[in-house]
């Protein structure tokens, strides 16, 4: 019984080609790996190898023939008897069924199912609320810096697989002192100074997470993480999906993000929208100390890769924090920071403080603004945004970052898609100016979002 040799495809898109040259003739003995022919397209020439052993039978397509369709039988190899029992080729018909079937699947397949209601990760989920704080709980006043440190220390005490690595996190006690005291308590095995090689140690962190540990990778600032973004996205975020759910990467990438003060364009950028656009990542950007602590603890416990965006300018601010044994907050849930009936201001990170400031000014003018802190940028709490919009019918987004392709753009899209009927005015966004951040004090001030600009936008949507 002979084996049919078919015109091969050089690429998934190739439909036909030229049989440029036969390198064997009828009657030749061929073995696996021998080059039988050269096939040409307009793009490339390729050699066609024998897969089976045997004797060349009839050559059905002469060399030099153009426009030979993929799948056409071009020759027959005679089997060598039992020893090389030919395996029947798939779809032994004359037309390129196999090639076709792959191409056709897309168009003839039934319509794709509707995506889950809340984006990636499954169907509608029960809403998780912040755990109730028992009455009588003592409220401590702590800085965001201390809250972050305490979150890491508590999780490191709880789980031996948690460790922290980054530049100056150990002996120096943290470039911004967020890791202060951790080396003393946990030692150099779990609090690890790295060389200044973000790409490398982000990869080592991701690999350690794939190997079953729970790394916290500190970037001195997220500006430097741009060198490591390949591992954050291609290695950490995508592997669970690409492996069919086999290979997890429970890692936290954390550090200060957004504009600091007078450090110029390369050290002043909000990467929230970059990471929030990536399926497979969790992105958290807390504002106050209680959220910083509760969400960082949740991030460390998460089985998914988390980008945890802090803000240098908030590190030293003090807030009240409930003194609980285990203060863990739900990821993916926004928080109403101030209730109001007239307008909603959606914000996150440092701009939450500016929004609250604007709300105080507006209240004096008789406008009651509801301030919603997104806290998690991915998955974004659409429901909280839409619920508040349904209540106030007017919405402004305040974001310390560029306006183009921003979290503000995303929230505006959500309002258009699912909140249109509730809108009494166009949604407005208040962001930084669309320029690299300048160094000069006056220009920097001009470029960055402030409470006055938020208040002005609110007045506009309220027709004041």
């Amino acid at each position, binding site marked *: 019984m002979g084996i049919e040799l078919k015109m*091969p495809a050089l690429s998934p898109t190739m439909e036909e080609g030229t049989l440029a040259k036969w390198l064997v003739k009828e009657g030749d003995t061929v073995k696996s790996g021998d080059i039988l022919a050269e096939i040409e397209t307009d793009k490339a*020439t390729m050699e066609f190898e024998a897969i089976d052993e045997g004797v060349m039978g009839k050559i059905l397509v002469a060399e030099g023939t153009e426009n030979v369709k993929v799948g056409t039988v071009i020759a027959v190899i005679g089997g060598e008897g039992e020893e090389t029992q030919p395996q029947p080729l798939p779809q032994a018909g004359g037309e390129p069924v196999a090639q076709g079937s792959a191409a056709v699947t897309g168009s003839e397949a039934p319509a794709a199912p509707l995506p889950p209601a809340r984006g990636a990760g499954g169907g509608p989920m029960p809403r998780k609320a912040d755990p109730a704080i028992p009455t009588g709980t003592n409220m401590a006043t702590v800085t965001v810096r201390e809250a972050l440190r305490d979150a890491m220390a508590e999780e490191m005490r709880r789980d031996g697989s948690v460790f922290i690595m980054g530049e100056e996190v150990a002996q120096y006690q943290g470039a911004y002192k967020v890791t202060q005291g951790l080396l003393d308590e946990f030692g150099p095995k779990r609090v690890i100074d790295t060389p200044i090689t973000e790409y*490398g140690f982000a990869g080592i962190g991701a690999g350690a997470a794939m190997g079953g540990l729970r790394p916290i990778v500190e970037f001195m600032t997220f500006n430097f993480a741009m060198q490591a973004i*390949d591992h954050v996205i291609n290695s950490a975020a995508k592997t669970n999906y690409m492996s069919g759910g086999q290979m997890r990467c429970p890692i936290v990438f954390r550090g200060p993000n957004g504009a600091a003060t007078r450090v110029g364009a390369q050290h002043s950028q909000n990467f929230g929208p970059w990471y929030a656009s990536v399926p497979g990542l969790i992105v958290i950007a807390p504002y106050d100390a209680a959220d910083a602590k509760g969400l960082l603890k949740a991030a460390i416990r998460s089985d998914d890769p988390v980008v945890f965006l802090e803000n240098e300018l908030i590190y030293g601010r003090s807030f009240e924090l409930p003194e609980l044994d285990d203060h863990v907050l739900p990821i993916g849930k926004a928080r109403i920071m101030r209730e109001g009936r007239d307008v909603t201001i959606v914000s996150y990170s440092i701009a939450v403080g500016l929004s609250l400031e604007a709300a105080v000014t507006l209240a004096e003018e008789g406008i009651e603004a509801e301030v919603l802190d997104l806290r998690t940028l991915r998955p974004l709490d659409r429901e909280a945004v839409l619920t508040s919009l349904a209540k106030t019918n007017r919405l402004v987004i305040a974001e310390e970052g560029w306006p183009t392709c921003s979290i503000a753009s995303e929230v505006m899209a959500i309002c258009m898609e699912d909140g249109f009927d509730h809108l009494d005015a166009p949604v407005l966004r208040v962001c930084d100016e669309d320029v690299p951040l300048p160094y000069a004090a006056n220009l920097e001030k001009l470029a960055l979002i402030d409470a006055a600009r938020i208040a002005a936008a609110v007045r506009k949507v309220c027709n004041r």
Partner: protein
Amino acid sequence: MAKPATSRKAPNTAAAGDDNFELRSLHDAHQANPRYAASDDELLAFYEQMLLIRRFEEKAGQLYGLGLIGGFCHLYIGQEAVAVGLQSALKPGHDSVITGYRDHGHMLAYGIDPKVIMAELTGRGAGISHGKGGSMHMFSTTHKFYGGHGIVGAQVPLGAGLAFAHQYREDGGLCLAYFGDGAANQGQVYEAFNMAALWKLPIVFVVENNGYAMGTAVTRGSAETHFYRRGTAFRIPGMHVNGMDVLEVRAAAELAFAHVRGGGGPVLMELQTYRYRGHSMSDPAKYRTREEVQEMREKHDPIDAAKIELLARGMTEEKLKELEKQIRSKVAEAADFAENSPEPDLPELYTDVLVGSY
């Protein structure tokens, strides 16, 4: 070059701390005794594994030509002795292996079922990644095979991270991280070298030097083409190994793994090998001559060499034919499974994006 120091307390005549700088010790030890003394059964097992990879890859090439495999498909044909020689000295499920996108051979060498690999290549729900990874993105955490990575060089720091996890857990395991002569020029490779040496991570870096970074010959892309020397700046000992002889590869593996397991820190191995096929299936390979490829196939093929050695040791042609037949049938079974398994269910589009529910 300096001979290995015999004592850590030798007089310090070089720069500070250089008395135990033994960069050539493994290389020299390997050159002195390059071939592993395999038993007949071991050699037969190596031959069988190499032949399985060869026949599997030939079948994959065939299925690609028929349009059953899409996208990029990088075949391992010619390089079989590398994965088999090295991984035969490891323990699947204990030691970690990570590689780039030319990953089918390393998976087969770790004993992963050819059926689920082939079904992944054809994009079927029964594939090892449920059809969502494809040729370049396959993993088996039970075997501690960690991929299958499509970004050139990314697997090197990831491998250092896997080694870090072995060291952190003190489980005695090591990581074998493969990359090509092309990836060897990526900056992140040297970031990983630095930290791996600094922290004495249990890792063996393996450069599979097949002569070409896609279409660029090593001499056109690399200032230092002796890749095993590239660890010198990080005090990582190097070894140059003939990657076309499975017994030489295995002998080198024994030395390198013992060094790493003994707490000596990383080793950099350069395996001189050759790929017979193009870089990927859509590569016409016009950057080299047919004579060059034929010369390698005819004179240096690792499978032919193992076969000749087996025959010389008294193995019969019949036995080898029988083995070949079994392998062909195993591969045919895998291809059959891969062609006839259904594509993933459509709701799979949305699964495994995240582990948790938020």
